[in-house]
C-alpha cells in the first residue's frame, strides 16, 4: 500500500507548525497582571468574527454560558466551532446566529433529553452551516498535540470509517512497527472559552472532578477567556500548586461570573436548570420562537446577572444548588 488513506475535507483550522506555534505563544505575556474584566470587555477584545472557537467543559457540563451569551449579544458572526461534545453551548451560539461551521464530534443534540433541538437542522438545510466530522477522543488528542507544540499526533480511532473520510485527518505509518495510524492535526483555536470553579486574578485556575480536555484546551488556545465562579487569592493557588490545572500564562482574560454555566451544570455547585433547558428546546422547534427566546434572554437583558434574575434569581440558584447536593429531587419537565 503506497498511498495512505486521508480524509476528503479541507481543515477548518490548519495546525500551526512548531515554529508558527512558538512565534505566537512566544509573544504571550508571562507577566502576572490583573486580567479581570467584564464579559463584554473580554468578548470585545478577544473574540472576532470568523474565529475558530474551542469551548471547555462538556456540552452542558461546566460550559461558559455567560461568555456565550455575551458573544450572542455582541453579534459575533461566522464563528467556526470545535464540536467536542457541544450541546447547549454550541446550540445557543447557533441560535444566536453566530456560527457558520462546526467540526462535529457530538453536536446538534442534548444527550438524554427527549426533545430534539431544531437549530442545527434548520441551518444545515438552509445551507447556512458547513460541517465536517471527528470523534470526541480525536478532539482531546488534537488539543493535546497543540498543548505539546507539535503539529500532529498518531491515534487508533476514526480509521476505516466515513467519520475519517469526512474529516481532514490523514494516516501515517509508525516508523517502528509499520502499523497504520490516524494522524490528527493539532488544533489551535483562535479563541478558547472556558468556565472554571476558581481562578485568581492572573488566570491560574483550579478544577475539581473530571477535566475532560480542558488542561490541553487552555494550552492550545491562541487567546483564552476564562470565566470563574469564584476569584481566589494568588496565595491560595500557591498553597496547592499541583491543583493548578490551567496556569495563568495561558489566560488572556478572567471574568468573575457566579452561576456562569447556567442553565448547565457546574459539578459540585449547581445542577442543570432543566426548566430553562426545556423552555429553550421547545422554543427551538420554530425559527420565530428561537428568535424570541434569544431576544428575551439575551438582547433584552443588559448582562448575565440580569439574565440570572430573569430565570429565577437567587431562589432558583439555591434550588439548583440543593439538587446538586442531593438535597432535593430534580424536575424532568420535558
Amino acid at each position: 500500500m503506497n498511498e495512505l488513506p486521508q480524509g476528503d475535507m479541507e481543515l477548518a483550522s490548519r495546525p500551526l507548525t512548531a515554529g508558527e506555534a512558538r512565534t505566537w505563544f512566544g509573544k504571550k505575556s508571562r507577566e502576572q497582571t490583573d486580567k479581570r474584566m467584564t464579559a463584554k470587555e473580554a468578548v470585545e477584545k478577544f473574540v472576532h468574527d470568523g474565529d475558530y472557537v474551542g469551548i471547555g467543559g462538556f456540552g452542558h457540563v461546566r460550559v461558559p454560558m455567560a461568555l456565550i451569551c455575551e458573544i450572542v449579544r455582541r453579534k459575533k458572526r461566522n464563528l467556526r466551532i470545535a464540536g467536542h461534545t457541544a450541546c447547549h453551548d454550541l446550540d445557543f451560539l447557533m441560535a444566536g446566529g453566530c456560527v457558520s461551521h462546526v467540526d462535529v464530534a457530538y453536536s446538534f443534540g442534548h444527550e438524554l433529553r427527549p426533545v430534539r433541538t431544531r437549530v442545527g437542522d434548520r441551518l444545515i438545510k438552509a445551507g447556512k452551516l458547513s460541517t465536517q466530522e471527528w470523534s470526541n477522543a480525536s478532539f482531546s488528542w488534537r488539543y493535546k498535540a497543540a498543548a505539546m507544540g507539535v503539529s500532529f499526533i498518531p491515534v487508533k480511532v476514526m480509521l476505516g470509517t466515513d467519520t475519517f473520510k469526512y474529516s481532514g485527518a490523514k494516516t501515517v505509518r509508525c516508523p517502528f512497527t509499520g502499523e497504520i495510524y490516524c494522524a490528527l492535526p493539532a488544533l489551535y483555536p483562535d479563541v478558547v472559552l472556558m468556565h472554571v470553579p476558581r481562578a485568581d486574578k492572573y488566570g491560574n485556575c483550579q478544577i475539581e472532578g473530571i477535566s475532560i480536555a480542558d488542561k490541553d484546551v487552555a494550552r492550545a488556545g491562541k487567546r483564552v477567556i476564562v470565566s470563574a465562579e469564584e476569584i481566589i487569592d494568588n496565595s491560595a493557588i500557591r498553597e496547592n500548586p499541583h491543583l493548578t490545572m490551567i496556569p495563568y500564562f495561558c489566560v488572556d482574560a478572567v471574568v468573575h461570573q457566579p452561576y456562569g454555566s447556567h442553565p448547565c451544570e457546574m459539578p459540585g455547585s449547581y445542577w442543570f436548570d432543566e426548566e430553562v433547558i426545556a423552555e429553550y428546546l421547545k422554543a427551538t422547534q420554530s425559527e420565530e420562537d428561537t428568535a424570541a427566546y434569544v431576544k428575551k434572554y439575551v438582547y433584552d437583558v443588559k448582562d448575565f446577572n440580569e439574565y440570572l434574575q430573569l430565570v429565577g434569581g437567587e431562589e432558583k440558584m439555591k434550588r439548583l444548588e440543593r439538587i446538586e447536593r442531593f438535597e432535593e429531587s430534580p424536575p424532568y419537565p420535558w
Partner: protein
Amino acid sequence: MKHSLTEQMIRTAAGLLEDNKTCFVGSGLPLAAASLAKKTHAPNLILVFEAGGFDPEFTRLPLSVGESITFYHATYAGGMDDIMGDAGKGMVDYGFLGGAQIDMYGNLNSTVIGDYFHPKARFPGSGGANDVGSLCFKTIAIMRHEKRRFLEHVDFITTPGYLDGPGGRERAGLPAPGGPWRVVTTLGMMGYDDETKRMELLGVYEGVTKDDVIKETGFELIIKAEPEILPAPTSEEIRIFREEIDPVGVISGKSKGKD
C-alpha cells in the same frame, strides 16, 4: 409482573455483562443495563464514562455522560485523554453503542440519513462512539429493530463494526482484538459469525419469531439454528429497575407521560 419492551432490552443487555469487567456506558439504556447488572449478578462491574469518570457510586441517573454523578465517589476522575488512552491500551472490556442504522458487519450510523452534504436528517455524529467502537474489546449495540435501520449499507459509517468484513478492521489499521459483539434490539439479540463477521441471530424475546426478525432486517441474517427464547426480566429485576434505577421514569418515559 408485566414488563415493558424497554425493560426486556435492558435485562437482555444487562445479562451480557460479566462481573469485574470494565464497561463504557452512555446515559440512557446502556447505563440502565449496566446498573441492573451491578444490582444483580455483576456487583463489581466497573462503569467508565468517556468524559473521565471511572467507577462512580450512583445516586441517580445522569442526564449527561459528563455530569457530576458520573464521577461521584468515583475511583478516579480524569480526562477524556486518560480514559481513551486506557481504552486504547485494552483496559475497557465492553462498550455500548447506539445509532440510527446498522449493517450486517455491525457498522453504525449516527451522523446523517441521506447525502452528507444534503442530509435528510442530521444526527449528533460520533461523539465518543467511533472511539468506543475502535478501542473496546467487545461492543454491544442497542437498536430499534426496523427494516429501515438494519440495512445492507448504512448511509454513513460513523463507528466501525467489521467494516467490509473479515480483516477489514486490520486493513484499516484498527487495533485487534476488538469489534462488534452483540446487538440487542426491540426483537431479540444478534451476534456475529466468527468466520464471515456477519450478523447472526442468537435469540428472540418471548412471542417474537425468527420470521418477525427476518422481516425487519434489511440484509441476510445468518441463522444457524432456531433462536433461543431470551429470558424475560424477573419480577425482582423489574422492581429494581422501576424502584431503584429509574424511579422518576427518565428512561422508561414515565417522566414525559409515556410508557
